[in-house]
């Protein structure tokens, strides 16, 4: 039986193949961003049309489509190299000026704050990757882009995990990232490794950069690397000895005299300097207990994970409910830290300084009024 086909050949011509290859690889930053954002070619064309390139250059939709496809293909071919940025510099296939290479790498490794907040502190495992469609739905970031970002985290994590030396430097060297971006990755790696809880409701108000700042503090002060800088994993793991020593701080709350003494020193120092003096005075013991207890529990990995939530529950929330300003918090923590040094019977000055330095800056960063 004959199948009758309506041969209304409306389209008489179709492009079978269409490529453009420059001796210097041409890459449009805008199109690159669209690609990174995980747009399909047709979506990207739409965005570009709305952006007004066509009017600027008297181009037609066909031209735009052809250009977009071509560039997407180029990026795809480059992706393998971008995953190993060191290769990009000495590969021969694409001739790309160094400043362009840097741009390509930087943007490839850039990530969305919304995305990273979802993943921060989670194990970078296949399981997490499977849940990325939820993340995508929640954040509005395309799944493709989510996957790229996730894979970047994982790749960086795997590479630096086994390296000696400072974390940030290692990331810079292996992935040729600029300093701020390398620091962000250090934070991500650090969080992933220690599995800090960041997803609880109470933590939602914190931005990635709040956490990244805290991670920087922890890396610089609480890890093995802060003391000895040629140890494996030095920047990724917290200094076990230090954590052990933190238990000694318990004396500050366990010893009644010490606690009272500490309180009076702080009160003397703060009297008249803050509007929330009364609240502070009333709450001192609670707050001090909270902070010292956090310290004492850090030997337990589970409690390490809850470090940030503990800070909020034990310190930030009480202060906030009493309407402390950031200045009040700062003043309080400064004197709280310093007064302990004056306590004659308190012998753990070094550990105290190391501990409170980080706590203070973390709390200040996390204390949004």
């Amino acid at each position, binding site marked *: 039986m004959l199948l009758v086909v309506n041969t209304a050949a409306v389209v008489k011509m179709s492009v079978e193949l269409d490529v453009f290859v420059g001796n210097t690889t041409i890459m449009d930053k805008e199109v690159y961003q669209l690609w990174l954002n995980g747009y399909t070619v047709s979506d990207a064309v739409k965005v570009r049309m709305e952006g007004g390139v066509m009017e*600027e250059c008297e181009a037609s939709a066909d031209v735009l489509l*052809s250009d977009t496809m071509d560039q997407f293909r180029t990026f795809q071919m480059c992706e393998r190299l971008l995953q190993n940025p060191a290769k990009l510099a000495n590969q021969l296939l694409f001739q790309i000026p160094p400043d362009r290479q840097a741009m390509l790498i930087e943007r490839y490794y850039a990530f969305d704050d919304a995305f990273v907040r979802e993943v921060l502190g989670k194990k970078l495992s296949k399981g997490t990757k499977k849940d990325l469609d939820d993340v995508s739905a929640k954040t509005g970031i395309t799944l493709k882009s989510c996957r790229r970002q996730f894979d970047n985290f994982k790749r960086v994590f795997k590479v630096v995990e086994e390296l000696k030396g400072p974390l940030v430097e290692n990331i810079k060297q292996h992935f040729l990232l600029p300093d701020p971006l390398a620091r962000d990755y250090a934070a991500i790696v650090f969080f992933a490794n220690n599995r800090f809880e960041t997803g609880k409701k109470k933590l939602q108000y914190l931005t990635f950069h709040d956490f990244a700042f805290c991670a920087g503090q922890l890396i610089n002060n609480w890890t093995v690397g802060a003391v000895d800088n040629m140890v494996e994993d030095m920047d990724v793991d917290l200094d076990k000895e230090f954590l052990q020593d933190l238990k000694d701080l318990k004396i500050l709350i366990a010893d009644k005299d010490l606690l009272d003494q500490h309180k009076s020193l702080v009160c003397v120092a703060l009297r008249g300097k803050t509007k929330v003096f009364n609240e502070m005075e009333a709450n001192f013991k609670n707050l001090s207990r909270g902070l010292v207890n956090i310290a004492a529990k850090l030997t337990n990995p589970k409690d390490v994970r809850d470090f940030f939530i503990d800070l909020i529950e034990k310190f930030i929330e009480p202060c906030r409910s009493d309407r402390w300003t950031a200045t009040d918090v700062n003043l309080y923590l400064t004197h709280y830290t310093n007064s302990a040094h004056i306590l004659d019977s308190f012998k753990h000055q070094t550990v105290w300084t190391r501990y409170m330095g980080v706590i203070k800056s973390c709390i200040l960063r996390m204390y949004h009024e």
Partner: protein
Amino acid sequence: MPGKLKAKIVAGRHLPVMDRASDLTDAFVEVKFGNTTFKTDVCPKSLNPQWNSEWFKFEVDDEDLQDEPLQITVLDHDTYSANDAIGKVYIDIDPLLCSEAATVISGWFPIYDTIHGIRGEINVLVKVDLFNDLNRFRQSSCGVKFFCTMSIPRCFRAMVIHGFVEELVVNEDPEYQWIDRIRTPRASNEARQRLISLMSGELQRKIGLKVLEMGGNAVVGYLQCFDLEGESGLVVRAIGTACTLDKISSTCPAAVVPNLSNSSPSKDMKEAVFGEEAPGVPLSSGPPTPLRAQTFSSFSPSKSYSRQSSSSDTELSLTPKTGMGSGGSAGKEAGPLKALLRQQTQSALEQREFPFFTLTGFPVGFLLHVGGVVSARSVKLLDRIHNPDEPETRDAWWEEIRQEIKSHAKALGCHAVVGYSESTSICEEVCILSASGTAAILSSRFMQDGALDTEHRFEDTAPPACGFCHIPYDELNMPFPAQLTYCHCCRRHKVPDVLFTTIDVPTEASITGKGCLIQARLCRTKKKAQGEGNATAISNLLPFLEYELHTQLLNKLKLRGMNALFGLRVQISVGDTMLLGLASATGVYLTALPSPGGIQIAGKTPSDLTYEQHVSNMQKKINDTIAKNKELYEISPPEWVEEVIGSPIPESRQRSRIFRSHSESSDEVLELDLSHGKKDAFVLEIDDTDAIEDIHSLLTDAPTPPGFYSCNTEIMPGIYNWTSSLQMFTSVRVFRLSNANLTNQGLNKIFNDLCENLLKSLYFKLRSMVPCCLCHVNFIVAVPEDELIQVAVTAVAMSLDKDQTQENGRQSGDKTLMKAITENEEQLQFPLELSAECPSNPLSSAKGLSEVSGPLPSARAPSVDHSSFTDRCSSWIEQIRLKAHTIRRGSIKTTSSLEKSSPLPDSRSRSLRSNRSCPSSSVAVVKMTPLSFLPGTKIIKYLGIINMFFIRETTSLREEGGVSGFLHSFIAEVFAMVRAHVAALGGNAVVSYSMKECVFMENPNKNQAQCLINVSGDAVIFIRESELEATPSQTQSGNVQTSSNGEGT
């Protein structure tokens, strides 16, 4: 044993994982030359192996050195099964055989596999120790330099231009051998790559021998092509221009060399002064006006007989036979006809046998008059090449065509053909051979025997810059009807109304306004046929195709208000069901030629009112377009009072009258002549749909977007403010016609849109470079299979200095010069040039004159011609109807055009920003350009010719991103391999780069595709002119010296 080749394998990197279990590779390397193979140790379990091998030494004949490539194979060692090949590198060691070229090849080469593409890189070191060879009867031609560049390469000076050299070798295509049925695609591809590499080497060696016989030392404008004839074999042929070149540096103190001598070639020529009798004083050339004469060459569907007999040369491709073994060129020992021709060629009269020059740019004073384009085509039926050692059929075919070209040139009163090129288009067993060039009269200055034209010798004293426009033929005895007027520059000689050429715009030419790319595109359906019937059908179609193309070109030229075409290139491609014609050229307004008339539309049925209205509407549109174009291209020629000076020649009106006629369609001519004979303008009849189509296509050509210029010559006439930022690119498109029942018009429209859209895409892609010019835009069209049209474009986009876009184009300096010279250099050189030229003969060139006025440091000497006057000639002889008037040539005319004589102190303070292109990272940047120079730089050394042939095949097309993904990565790989080879030779750029062949075949159903690409170019070392500043005083002295020498001559 005249040579020792040494190779050392240093290291590898980024190797692919060959052992899945360990994710590593146990790599080792085989190094093979001829039949000798060495192996490195296995470097276990590494993707970045360090072999650091000993030096592998091959003791070989220099003949082998020329023919054979060094073959490096990287393998993965496998204890239990066969070793897996990772990929190969072929290194052409030819550049090492020339004392002045590269001395060592050292660098990272991509490891290439025909199935997987590039798989990592390998670091190799290669050297050659050559022993002096005293044997006069040697078969090798080591030391002959080859250049793809179509003009005398910069940093050389031509002592003698000997003339045409050609050779072809044939072989069986390994792809079609019986063994191909049982071997893997990889083996087959590699056999082919290797065979072609061998054949190219052999071809080059043989051409080199001819050059040596002629007493030359170099081949310039070397054009090598492959004809993949399928079943009937594989032909590799080459043509070129033999020259005796002298490195300029050798004449001057070494220190000066880089500064001075290496300046733009054009310059060199001009001031080539220092040699003794060499092209001393810039004798400006007074070339004639090229008319276009259109003659259709014969289409002889002759079948080449000689059915195969014993053709069992399968071994050829497999065994790398050294020596002349494999496909001997047609040659010397061939049939009687051949032998005869050969003899002639070899005689001292060779130049006259085929006075052809592949050059498109010439030393100043070489090109005297231009007659017009000459071309010849011939349709042949392919037959199996039964004996590779006697390829006489192919040779005879080309002889035939060349003879025809020669006779066309004669008909135009010319004794030479410049800008000569040859091409083929093959569809199954039918092959169209085409040759074209520009008929010209040349000065004897660079000829060995100087006898070429006695007549014109006299002119040497002071030919005017407009000279090349003056007609070379006898006015009373014109080869075709044409309309002559007095030259608008000198007013003494006759010029044609329109001039078509295949060469570049001569540097001395005076151009009004700017030029632009003009294309005529045509598609004609053809019935499917076989064998002789097919050939006849094609033969019958060809004349019409050419005629139409020519008419389109002429119309488009007029629509832009221009009067001359340069770089004309006509391609005809055959498919099973259609013929494609694409003519590309750069239109300009030559100041010397009359202003073109308008285009007038005439309807045939004047009674119909609406029709009249329609006609007048169109007329208006056309007039508007012309006016707009004149503004766009800044064409505002000075108004000339009618022929005041000239003798009273009735026809010499400002607007020339042209009818659309053609020798072969005399009826039409007659008719036209009757009806519109009185009109001044070019008349277009729209009595039929075809004509309406014509007009539509005229008007649908979109203008280039603002900020863009385009041309297919080396540089755009009228633009001087080049910067050093450039981008070479290749773009390929394949279109599928899904409706088989297309009419001619439908096809035309599709083809036209296709080309237009492609150009639009290019402009869009390159918009960040604006203002910029697309130079040397080269289209290659093909009909790979039924219903497919393939268009490949290679060009270079060069940015212009924004601040100087408005620079006056009239000043007619040579742009190349301008580009090529840094400010610094300019300052240094101007005075020199002036001093050299002015005193000796101020009238030598109009440009020279104009310059004299401004010898300020900033002043630019317009007189300098740049090396490439590349005029590329495609040639038909077209008919032009000019009324002939005798012009006496031979008298010494030193008039310069008024325009020029007005001293324009072109303060061309064009600050070439020496944009440093990307600072080099760990991989050295290699620039590529189809031009013969890089703006803002000096080429200080030519390292040798790059001529590479690659095959890529895939059986996983979808996985590689479809056809586009496949071809995209292949082209990128080809670029990468070219760059790697250049870098390994110590170079930092490829000039005169071209993609000769891009054959793409696909079978999506089988998920397969295959592509063959052939590229060539000259590897060079350039330095930025800004880097030359360090030695100004030396330059100065060098210049002075130069100039004084010049005067001496």
